[in-house]
């Protein structure tokens, strides 16, 4: 059956022409020369005062990148990207680098204020009373401010921009950088390794539960630039952190490239919760402009009983190409992936996850909801695999798609590979397989089956999303409320 009116209205409310963050800030900035070359990489590295090993690492990545071809297996179409026509570094002239909050350019503060991101520590987040969130604000290629650093340091938590981490904690960066997403992992990750500019670095020492939510806010402002951030989060034994990233960009006619790499490492008994609210400019109604979001995100559950959970709410970007993955290496480790992807206008989404079960008794859970409207295409692409030694591995996957209108498409491409007899994998793309007893309980109390299914599934996902910090939670909640009625598997 077709989608219900309520859902149609909700999706319309976040249609591409309703994009609220499309303003641009006029701020003087400094750029690297156009194009991609060893000189540009030298320039970026020099700007950041990086050690020789990192420069060599970048140059090696560039050399490897030149031998790679752009992948074409995803269900997305776009004109050829001219990598030599981009600026790989753009930074506000004033206030760049690790300034104390008082030194940050007021123009930048105003921009982030307008975006609802408070860069003053005493400020309270809109709609979230009493909640304190430490923010690392990245503007084009540099981190402009990080809040609550001292307080976090008291707990032993390191939270800073990655450039700062390279200077202050080189041993940690050198040990873990590229250990989850190798330099030559894929075309875009290799490009990122060569030119990454800023991003966040988090280190949690043994047994520390991070006292507040951590968050990074990415803003692209300059024209003709790409943003290449790199995030590295290390949770040492028994620690816990919840991290959120948000992102927006001005409305522009051109397509801009965003190729990020995120690496998560969870050691024994550690837990990382990584949430994304992706709201890059999606292009206009005719499909002009918008961000190309080609992102490599991967978490490594390296230790026993570790857990990595990805939550993503994807509403922006002209093209989304991202597969947050979990390598379940440690015995009893857990991976989770919750995703809601809404595409509208001419957006193209090709997203999903990979759960690689290597250790014993590893568990993964995938819940994905895709909603396609307008002329958009929405694809779920995922891999669940069990290695020979992954005895007792368990996976449950549920992906639902919903189409609104006649001109959009929804696709599901799951790969399920099992090399171990005691691994149990279940994949379903319908709403019928919810536990019978739960369904019975609801229907017995007068709900019809459709309502009961929506209640159970939404309740399940809501559980996770209610924990999303910041005002994004409000928007995310609205999306979650979108009915499953009429979903097509």
């Amino acid at each position, binding site marked *: 059956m077709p989608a219900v009116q309520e859902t149609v209205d909700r999706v319309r409310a976040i249609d591409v022409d309703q994009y609220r963050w499309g303003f641009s800030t006029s701020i003087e900035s400094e750029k690297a020369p156009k194009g991609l070359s060893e000189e540009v990489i030298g320039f970026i590295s020099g700007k950041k005062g990086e050690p020789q090993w990192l420069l060599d690492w970048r140059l090696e990545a560039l050399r490897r990148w030149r031998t790679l071809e752009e992948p074409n297996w995803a269900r997305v179409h776009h004109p050829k990207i001219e990598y030599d026509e981009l600026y790989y570094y753009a930074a506000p002239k004033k206030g760049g680098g690790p300034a104390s909050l008082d030194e940050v350019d007021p123009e930048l503060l105003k921009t982030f204020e307008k975006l609802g991101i408070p860069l003053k520590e005493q400020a309270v987040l809109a709609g979230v009373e009493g909640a304190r969130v430490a923010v690392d604000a990245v503007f084009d290629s540099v981190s402009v401010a990080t809040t609550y650093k001292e307080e976090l340091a008291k707990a032993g938590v390191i939270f800073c921009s990655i450039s700062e981490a390279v200077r202050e904690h080189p041993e940690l960066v050198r040990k873990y950088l590229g250990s989850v997403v190798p330099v030559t992992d894929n075309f875009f990750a290799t490009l990122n390794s060569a030119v990454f500019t800023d991003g966040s670095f988090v280190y949690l020492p043994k047994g520390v539960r991070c006292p507040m939510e951590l968050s990074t806010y990415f803003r692209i402002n300059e024209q003709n630039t790409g943003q290449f951030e790199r995030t590295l989060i290390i949770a040492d034994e028994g620690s816990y952190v919840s991290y959120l990233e948000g992102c927006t960009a001005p409305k522009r006619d051109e397509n801009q490239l965003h190729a990020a790499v995120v690496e998560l490492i969870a050691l024994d008994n550690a837990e990382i919760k990584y949430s994304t609210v992706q709201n890059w400019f999606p292009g206009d109604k005719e499909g002009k402009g918008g961000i190309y979001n080609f992102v490599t995100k991967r978490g490594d559950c390296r230790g026993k009983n570790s857990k990595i959970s990805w939550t993503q709410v994807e509403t922006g970007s002209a093209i989304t190409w991202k597969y947050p993955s979990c390598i379940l290496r440690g015995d009893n480790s857990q991976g989770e992936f919750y995703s809601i992807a809404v595409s509208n206008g001419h957006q193209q989404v090709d997203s999903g996850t990979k759960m690689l079960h290597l250790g014993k008794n590893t568990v993964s859970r995938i819940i994905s909801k895709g909603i396609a409207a307008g002329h958009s295409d929405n694809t779920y692409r995922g891999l669940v695999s069990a290695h020979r030694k992954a005895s007792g591995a368990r996976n449950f996957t549920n992906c639902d798609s919903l189409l609104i209108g006649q001109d959009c498409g929804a696709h599901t491409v799951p790969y399920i590979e099992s090399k171990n007899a005691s691994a149990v994998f279940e994949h379903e793309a319908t709403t019928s397989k919810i536990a019978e007893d739960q369904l019975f309980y609801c229907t017995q109390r007068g709900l019809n089956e459709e309502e009961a299914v929506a209640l159970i599934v939404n309740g399940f996902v809501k559980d996770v999303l209610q924990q999303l910090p910041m005002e994004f939670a409000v928007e995310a909640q609205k999306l979650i409320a979108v009915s499953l009625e*009429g979903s097509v598997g």
Partner: protein
Amino acid sequence: MTAPTPIRTKAETALMAQYEALRRELPKQAAGQSAREAAMATFAASGLPHRRIEAYHYTDLRNLLREAAPLAHRPSATAGSSVEAGRFLGDIDAHEIIFVNGSLMHAEGLASQLPKGVSIGMVADTAPGILDGNDAVVALNTALSRETVTLEIAQGVAVERPLHLAFIQDAGAPQAVFARVCVRIGEGASVTLLESHEGPNAIATQSNIGVEIAAADDARVEHVRVNAEGDKAFSLSSLGLSLGHRACALSLNLILGSAISRHQILARFAGAEAKLRLDGVGMLDGGRHADVTLVVDHAMPGGESRELFKTVVDDRANAIFQGKIIVRPHAQKTDGKMMSAALLLSEDASMSNKPELEIFADDVQCGHGATCGALDENLLFYLMARGIPRREAQAILIRSFLGEALEELSSDELREALGGLIDSWLVRRS
């Protein structure tokens, strides 16, 4: 970054040489020849598909097909009589249409034995009508099949006894067989088709069989295919199905033999409100590799499709299921459900599932499911607590697991015969 020039593998070169030899041997008939040439050009451009080609990701033919066996010679006119076809199907009473090494036997006499309304013929043209000519396996089949055997069921005719297409490999040494059969079922006609493939053990036979079944409006067809090839066989097969308005088709594929097999199905909804059912039973042991790949293309509104594939994988065997449901724009009210379930019986067995959906219409119901796991220990315990030995308890559970895929068959006789094949495999296992 230019694409590297393809290096031809030994098998690719041999296949191309075989084509050249066959071309000289066959009569120069313009129609058939041009389709062959085009197909060979398609193959020459792509070569054997490898794991980088999405549809062949799990069955890398470039790697698996190292040697192309020589083409089988046409058997003498009496060869068929020495081989008893389809004995493993029990006492099913059917009209037998026997192919030895890909060639139709007793072609002249056959026409008079077939029931009224059924006609059989042969044409030189091997161009595919339903199958995808760009697929490398289909292209090879087009290029290297000597002819197309056509089977027609006239309008409104209900064929009572099943028609049994029995393919037999009569080989003493490795050989390759290519054959193409095209079945056309007239408006409102109905028929049951059996298709069996047999061959000797211990001989590395190769086969590439293409079957097309076109069901016209309101036609009904039940198609049961049994792969009982020898234990060293390399079997490639393609099935093209086309369904007219309100047509109703069932195709069941049972895998018992072959060292390496790949069965691909392309089912197209050419008319509205047609019904399709695809079922599969796979029994794999040793180091065998079996791939079932299917595409269900809902191009017309109101279609219904159901797929149920059950596979048990033992020893070091490797099973693959790839299923794709496409719902084209305007194919509203489509109802599609696909299920693949696998049981892994040993530590080294592996299963890969890829159930895909590609949907462009908003008022449809489509779903898929895939499961993979070991036998339920609780169920085993229940049976063993009642004094049934472990191996036997396993057999009971496997039998009922696989049996589900046979339930939609309309003929009890046929269901029993296929059930017998499952039992024989279970006996072989224990």
